[in-house]
């Protein structure tokens, strides 16, 4: 199974067990995440034998729906709960990617997760990286998962 397939598998597992939402692959991998509008990004760094960044880019409406499902409470704005939930999603995905990339998961350390949210921004690797960008869909809309790995 290649990395993309394992990321897809992890994402579906996390969403069904922790978020209690159905997700599926929305289409083929993308070349870039591009300019993000009214979106919130959760990101986490991977360090050690493999260096990289894992990011999940979620449009605001989808992020609020995910947070409501995750926390079991209604959410109607991008507030601290949403930032926390998105950061935690990045944390969980990062944990799975750590295991995917390293046999015992022990040679890779996870950074602190962080979020970026805004009306319009771009998210870009600043070094030469291999990128995997996968679109997913939920009943509330689509989101992207982006893995950048140092070459």
């Amino acid at each position, binding site marked *: 199974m290649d990395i993309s397939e394992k990321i897809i598998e992890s994402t579906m597992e996390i969403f069904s067990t922790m978020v209690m939402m159905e997700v599926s692959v929305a289409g083929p991998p993308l070349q870039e995440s591009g300019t993000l509008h009214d979106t919130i990004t959760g990101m986490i*760094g*991977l360090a050690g034998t493999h260096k990289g960044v894992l990011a999940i880019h979620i449009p605001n409406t989808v992020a609020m729906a995910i947070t409501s499902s995750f926390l079991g409470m209604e959410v109607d704005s991008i507030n601290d709960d949403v930032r926390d939930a998105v950061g935690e999603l990045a944390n969980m995905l990062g944990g799975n990617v750590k295991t995917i990339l390293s046999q015992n998961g022990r040679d*890779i350390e996870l950074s602190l997760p962080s979020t970026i949210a805004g009306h319009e921004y771009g998210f870009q690797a600043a070094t030469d990286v291999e990128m995997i960008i996968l679109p997913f869909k939920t009943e509330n809309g689509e989101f992207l998962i982006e893995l950048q790995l140092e070459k």
Partner: protein
Amino acid sequence: MDIGQDIVNAATDVFSTMLMIDLVVGEPVEGAGGEVTSNISSMLGLGGDIRGMLAVHCPAAVAMAITSGFLGMDVDTLNEDVKDAIGEIANMIAGNLKIAFAGYGVKVELAIPTSVVGESYRVGGMLGAKRVAVPFGMESGQFLVELKYIVNG
């Protein structure tokens, strides 16, 4: 361990060595900050004994001035060169922090820098994380170097 001082040392070293710029050093601020107004933020994760996220937040004018200094040529848009340059600044500051932390027996590994560019965005961290931020001044304006972190249990 005085992280504010470590950040000051790390950044002033990078700027004086690589860019021949003597930064004006502001007061380190601890704890939750307000929203940071910037046009480009380069972020780099740290993992190991500490789980952290280092960010360098710059307004456009400062980012372009830094990039011009790096490349030896004028830069007037937030283009690829600027994203790479500020990413590299974050990388070098983080590299210095890694060495400083090692001096206390705190081991961290670095991830890779990512640049966020936009007119209006807000960077948030994990609730419960500590935060230290230091403002620095150059001729073209101020930028902020911020470390959010938790000690790994």
